């Protein structure tokens, strides 16, 4: 009678599984058929998307192929002939609608977009020729475009190396020459004279003839112009430092209180590297205006908050984040709960924080722990970045070295258990047994388990295994609720990232161990009967085989071990969320048909609404477990 019932049940289960698999196959077929449309515009308003046909706006073109293969959505370069900028990956239609010129190169690797060095005065920009002309027009300068310079740094260095000096112009009204500190090409008298030996002028007590004096300041005594040193300072647009200014309003050298009466300092141009406090921010310095944005300061109007310099109205303003104890430009990682060692909590996330301009900016890394934050120390300077969490192929690794190869993946080795290719589920390693390549000594799991959006899953199937009991066989199983559309990956020990569905990962934690004993007759010292282990599982999981039953301690140990594996696979199993709340909704363990741990499964099917980052691990749904048990 029991056998008949069991057969009926098995048949029903087979039919159910077949129906589900067929549905999945059908859905996949439909999905595959549907997603391969290129919609010129979708109903949501997006241009050129590969989407299901139902999402294509019927007023626009669509065809059953990838957008890259269509003429109307082929990505190209959209060239803005007015501004001289090139926009990549732009469909022809979108570019045309924006009055741009579409060119057939997705990455804009075409002549109008090729950058060169655009020198505008003493500034350099690595841009296209059209852009260079546009910028020159904006600033009223001549465009000097050099294609021979092929990188931005050389371009900037070249521009900054442009000759700059005193441009002396005769003033017949006063008899004393006027002077402006400017670029050679902007000096109208540049062609008239250039005397490099200023001492000649001083010796003969002459004023300088009109002309351009490279690297000489207008305040140079030898020039004999109307411009003289002052105690005033100023800021220059686009520059970090505080500069002295002469009586004519010309920019002189970087502010240095100790050089205020130094004739040499008011005569020739001193480079930044030759000026006071170079290599430091000089933030708040009363005597030095050599501010540097990269070192954490910038010239600013002096006030009570910034302090006042010894001379002038400007001071180097510090940009460090004092409250956070970080320097300007530093970045570092923060998390909202403990991370690493496979113990990232549900809903937790990595963040990168950056100290810029006295302010801490927080940048979240990708959600679901798809990115992790990494940081490095360079002296006292910390730098961080969000980068991909490479957990995807962890469970495929059977070798510890491969698993822990930090160059290519973010995984950790859990000794003691492994994915058995024979049973298709997690098994305990037996140290007495020589373990071959296919039966490794440990399990490779994500170092930072990924998050899943378990609360939105709708298609649910059970991957639980049936429970049986007999007088000599005790079964216990630990189940991570699985809500994948397929059971194919259940317990296989192998998940192919190209074919696995999101939650197959949780299903990997589903495990069942069947413990068998046998009664052995003992003849000595007197005739008796004794229970002994009859299968490998028994020796692995049972501490005292002669007890003839699975003790609570053994069962709990098994459940606990399995759960530890579960929550390391992602948002699976019973675990804490980022707020520290522990729930077992994602976990259920049974000894025979009796629940021994976890609250997942049939009993909490109504609780599947536990959601979001404040929710807990994988919502569950192993309704079938109970049904099976009841049958």
């Amino acid at each position, binding site marked *: 009678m029991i056998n008949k019932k069991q057969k009926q049940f098995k048949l029903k289960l087979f039919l159910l599984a077949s129906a589900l698999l067929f549905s999945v196959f059908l859905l996949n077929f439909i999905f595959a058929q549907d*997603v391969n449309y290129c919609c010129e515009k*979708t109903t*949501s*308003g*997006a*241009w*050129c*998307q590969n989407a299901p046909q139902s*999402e294509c706006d019927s007023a626009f073109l669509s065809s059953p192929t990838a*957008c890259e293969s269509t003429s109307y*959505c082929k*990505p190209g370069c*959209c060239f*803005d002939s*007015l*501004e001289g*900028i*090139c*926009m*990549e*990956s*732009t*469909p022809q239609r*979108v*570019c045309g609608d*924006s*009055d*741009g010129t579409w060119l057939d190169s997705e*990455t804009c690797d075409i002549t109008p977009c090729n950058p060169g060095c655009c020198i505008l005065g003493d500034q350099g920009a690595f841009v296209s020729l059209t852009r260079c002309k546009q910028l020159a027009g*904006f*600033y009223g300068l001549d465009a000097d475009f050099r294609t021979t310079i092929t990188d931005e740094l050389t371009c900037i260095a070249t521009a900054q190396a442009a000759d700059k000096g005193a441009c002396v112009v005769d003033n017949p009204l006063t008899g004393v020459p006027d002077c402006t500190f400017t670029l050679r090409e902007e000096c109208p008298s540049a062609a008239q004279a250039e005397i490099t030996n200023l001492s000649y002028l001083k010796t003969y007590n002459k004023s300088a003839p009109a002309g351009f004096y490279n690297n000489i300041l207008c305040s140079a005594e030898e020039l004999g112009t109307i411009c003289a040193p002052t105690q005033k300072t100023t800021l220059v647009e686009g520059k*970090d430092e505080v500069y002295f200014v002469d009586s004519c309003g010309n920019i002189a050298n970087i502010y240095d209180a100790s050089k205020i009466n130094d004739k040499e300092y008011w005569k020739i141009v001193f480079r930044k590297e030759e000026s006071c406090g170079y290599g430091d921010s000089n933030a708040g310095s009363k005597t030095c205006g050599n501010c540097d*944005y*990269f070192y954490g300061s910038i010239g600013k109007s002096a006030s009570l908050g910034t302090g006042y310099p010894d001379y002038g109205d400007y001071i180097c303003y510090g940009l460090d984040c004092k409250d956070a104890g970080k320097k300007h*430009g530093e970045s570092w990682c923060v998390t909202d709960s403990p991370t690493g060692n496979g113990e990232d909590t549900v809903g937790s996330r990595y963040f990168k924080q*950056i100290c*810029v*301009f006295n*302010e801490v*900016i927080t*940048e*979240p*890394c*990708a*959600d*679901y722990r798809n*990115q992790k934050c990494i940081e490095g120390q360079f002296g006292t300077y910390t730098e961080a970045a969000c980068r*991909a969490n490479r957990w*995807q192929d962890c469970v495929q690794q059977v070798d510890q070295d491969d698993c822990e190869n930090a160059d290519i993946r973010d995984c950790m080795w859990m000794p003691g258990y492994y994915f058995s290719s024979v049973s298709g589920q997690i098994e305990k390693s037996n140290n007495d047994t020589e373990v071959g390549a296919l039966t490794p000594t440990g399990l490779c799991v994500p170092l930072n388990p990924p*998050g*899943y*959006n378990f609360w939105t899953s709708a298609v649910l199937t059970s991957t639980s295994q049936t429970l049986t009991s007999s007088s000599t066989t005790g079964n216990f199983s630990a189940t991570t609720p699985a809500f994948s559309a397929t059971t194919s990956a259940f317990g296989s020990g192998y*998940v192919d*990232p190209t074919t*696995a*569905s*999101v*939650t197959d*990962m949780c299903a990997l934690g589903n495990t069942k161990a069947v413990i068998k004993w046998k009664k052995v007759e003992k003849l000595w010292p007197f005739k008796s009967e004794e229970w002994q282990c009859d299968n490998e599982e028994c020796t692995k999981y049972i501490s005292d085989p002669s007890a003839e039953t699975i003790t609570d301690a053994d069962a709990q140990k098994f459940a606990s071990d399995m759960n530890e594996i579960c929550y390391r696979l*992602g948002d699976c199993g019973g675990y804490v969320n980022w707020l520290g709340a522990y729930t077992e909704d994602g976990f259920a363990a049974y000894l025979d048909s009796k629940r021994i741990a976890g609250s997942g499964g049939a009993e909490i099917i109504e609780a599947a609404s536990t959601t979001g980052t404040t929710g807990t691990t994988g919502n569950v749904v192993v309704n079938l477990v109970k049904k099976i048990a009841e049958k």
Partner: protein
Amino acid sequence: MKKERKKRGISTSKRSQITIFVILAILIVGILIFLFYPSIQKWINPTIGDMLPNNCIEKAVKPSLALAMSQGGTIKPELYFMYNNDTIDYLCYTSQWYRTCTMQIPLLKQHIENEVQKDSQQKITGCIEDSISRLESKGYTVVTDGSKTATIILKPDNIVVSFNFSMKLIRDEVTTPIDTNSLETKIKSKAYDIIMIASSIQNFEARYGDTNTETYMGFYPNIKVEKLTQSDGSKIYIITERNTKETLIFAVRSLAWPPGIAVE
């Protein structure tokens, strides 16, 4: 007797107090008039220049620009991400996982110019008509040539609003021509700089699927760039000019990663 003196004393001091207050009030009014004399004079007796439409154009254009900039450059976005109850337009978008985005608004500067122009047109027309009414109330006959519209162009450091018409003011048989150049208005704004940085971010997102905001902040001290990655893989970028506090907020969805592994 003592009481009476005291009484008299009190009333004397009251009177002198009142006198002091009156003098102070007159002084304050005088100072205010002195300080605000140019404005008061403009208000009482405005010049032609004070009554031309370019004086009210800033109020017409700036709110539209601010609105467009707060929504990714579009006044009524069609494809958007909902962020803090605001609809933020996607400048570069893909609905797929693991793919870089397709440009949705390639020429952002021109797009914003058009959007602002469209949105502020009514206010600009109102501004022009208001200006004409004011001139007419001062006895001028106003003859306009061309449509009462304006063209908006974003340039470094300012927004240039040029009117698409010229005016002739006639009073006492004297004609004063007002050409389009003299009507041109420049409104201080750093929108151009912000938009150019946004365009660069668009290109990086389209090619690499991400950007490093620190690079932009390193090169441009006055610019603050915030990147807020959302759960669906969309990114909200907030670019702020530190001095003017102008902000451009836009969305991008590029190289988004699904929860777990997605099969496409």
